[in-house]
């Protein structure tokens, strides 16, 4: 039992004893992560729209218009990602 607790205390305190984690979080990391998640969701939406067209749920003109719009939104996200420090 003492061994279990001792090991647990060593594990928990390791970051405080090691310098590896020291320091502040770089700025913009969280914002970039959110934008990258939104970008990936947009790519999935582009694929879904093509799937909808190929399975007959969208006509070709509707799909092309939607695809243009989604790609425009994707590029907007890419620009936002580029602007994050």
């Amino acid at each position: 039992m003492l061994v279990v607790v001792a090991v647990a205390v060593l594990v928990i305190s390791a970051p405080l004893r090691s310098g590896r984690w020291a320091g502040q979080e770089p700025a913009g990391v969280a914002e970039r992560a959110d934008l990258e998640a939104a970008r990936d969701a947009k790519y999935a939406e582009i694929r879904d729209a093509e799937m909808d067209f190929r399975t007959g749920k969208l006509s070709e003109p509707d799909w092309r218009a939607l695809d243009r719009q989604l790609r425009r939104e994707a590029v907007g996200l890419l620009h936002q990602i580029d602007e994050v420090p």
Partner: protein
Amino acid sequence: MALAGFSCLAAALAFCLYGIGASLYGARSGRREYVASGRRAVYALAGTLAVAMAILQAAFVRSDFSFELVATHSSSTTPLFYRLTAVWSSQEGSLLLWVLLLALWSSAILFLTRRKLREVAPYATAVLLGFGAFFCVLLVFLESPFTTLAAPPVEGAGLNPLLRHPSMMIHPPMLYSGYTLFAIPFAFAVGALVTRRLGAEWIRATRPFTLAAWLLLGMGVMLGARWSYMELGWGGYWAWDPVENASLMPWLTGTAFLHSVMIQEKRGMLKVWNVSLVLATGVLAILGTFLVRSGILESIHAFGASTLGIPFLVLIIVMIAGSIALVASRSESLRSEHRLDSLLSREAAFLVNNLVLVALCFVVFWGTFFPLISEALTGEEASVGPPWFNRYITPLALVLVLLSGIGPLIAWRRATTANLRRNFALPGGAAVLMLAVLVIAGVTGSVAALLMFAFATFTLAAVGQELWRGVRARRAMSRDSVPAALVALVRRNRRRYGGYTVHVGIAVLFVGVAASSAFQAQRLVELRPGQTERIGGYAITYERPTSRLVAASNGRLERIDLGARLRVLRGDGPPQTLETYKSYFPSTSPGLGPVSRFFEGEATTEVALRAGLRRDLWTAVAPDIGRLLPRIEEGDKVFSEATELSDEDRGALLAQALRGLSRSYTDSPPPATFRLIASPLVTWIWLGGLIVLAGAAIALWPAGARARQPATAAGLARVARELERA
């Protein structure tokens, strides 16, 4: 060893409290080493609780009756499998299992997100450790599983015979895994709200855990229904029991969340709705645990009134108040980025689906808590039974199944009426055709059932059409064979086709529910050997009574079985033999005689089931042991007067007496009462459940390395180039 186990719990509590402090301090000060230390406190919690569980399991396996829990929930005659799983048949053991599973799942999510969600994760860690601390406080101060007895008994009380069924032993770990996994999106939602990081990242990171929670909770619900059908002796699978309902409610809101969160990911809409749903799901998961622990509502699961009611109530109130405060204070950050483009869209279908699921949850909630509310307001308890639930659940379930078929047929963003006509033609036609065939065949006893069959046909045809069109599109691009195209299609679109598979499973399941509810034939009859009863096209003959004494692996008598052998005929088919019996387990109550204790303890019914794809024949016997009472009383009297016998001689004499008793039941059997049930399509319920499981597994399956690769610079440039060209 009990002291070592208790020390583990105390250490676990200390780790929780430290971890909460370290995580919050690290989050507020930006000191990552404290955030990392807080995360490691979760790992330490999981390890310490695993050791505590191992100590308890070992005590059960070796039947160490110095542990009070082992003495009251196990015995030397309990088979090993049930000794291992008896740990969570008790209040204390189930609390330990709950917090252990919470710690394990929390460790997993925090390890996987250790380099992501850097702002959100510390607050999520604090919330998860807060739950851990709550349960550790209960275990340390109120319901310790490591309480010892000063004078351990020679033999334990044994496991409740009703729980001696494999599905019942797996059911709690499945349910608790569902509840504890739902704590993860709850915690990350709180973290996202606190930090105002309400983008897509926290949803994407927690999605696998949310889906796993939904899957495991659903499996737990199905296992409970299967246990009810096979063990409880009433022939049904769902009684709208409060604890059944408690596990269904978070599953319903979790289902709604899994659908509506897709709208947030695609369109940045419904943020308030989604955080409210995930927070409500977390609250309902704790509420489900509260209902079982507090004994506040009578049910066969309730462990009786306990000291845990007030602490759980306080926790639930804190969760609700905190959730409302957070959502209200972050309303600006939760504004929708877009509006609904069209009512003819998958988004609109998902919205309606959400409303139906939430309405279902509300009906279940109201029906479950109404007796308590009524008692609080009027002083008189009212009861709400299956007829009330069925009145409101049935129409909502019909809409849900129909929507399961409509959703796959509509495009995201907007659909045109011409497209809808083309996509709805085949499934609609199939549904109408099914309706016509059933009406012509005379299956008109229930309008609700007819509609369910039609809507399920619509759903199955819709998904089939989607699969066919997808395969056709794939083959047009790749020249794959049909099977290869199908595999590639599903692999590249796991969420979509996993979801479609779940919809198929739901449709199949509800066909089974509708048929078995609306067209069941049931009878309670008294038969003598040789007599025949007819039901649902079967002729069931009571051939002869059966009896046996069953010994455990250590040679001690475990139970007495009294039953019946039945011969079943259907049409010109060959006769089949079924056996049903009632098992009588001895009571450990000290005031009972050695013979009568076998008939004053717990009794379980072993059902005789002839299951098939088209129909089930379910039978259960209730032997009349009244005729045996004079011999039982005489046996007790003989033993009470035979004080000079040694233990060995008493054992031998008891075995002889019980053998004689069971022989007298078969030699001159009294009439026995049989419950006979013929139900169509019950097997479809279990099959539907398995299909749902398969669909969830497909959706959960991780994408291949290629799909996970971040978009390359060339890919990014391509998006921009193609856009300029268009």
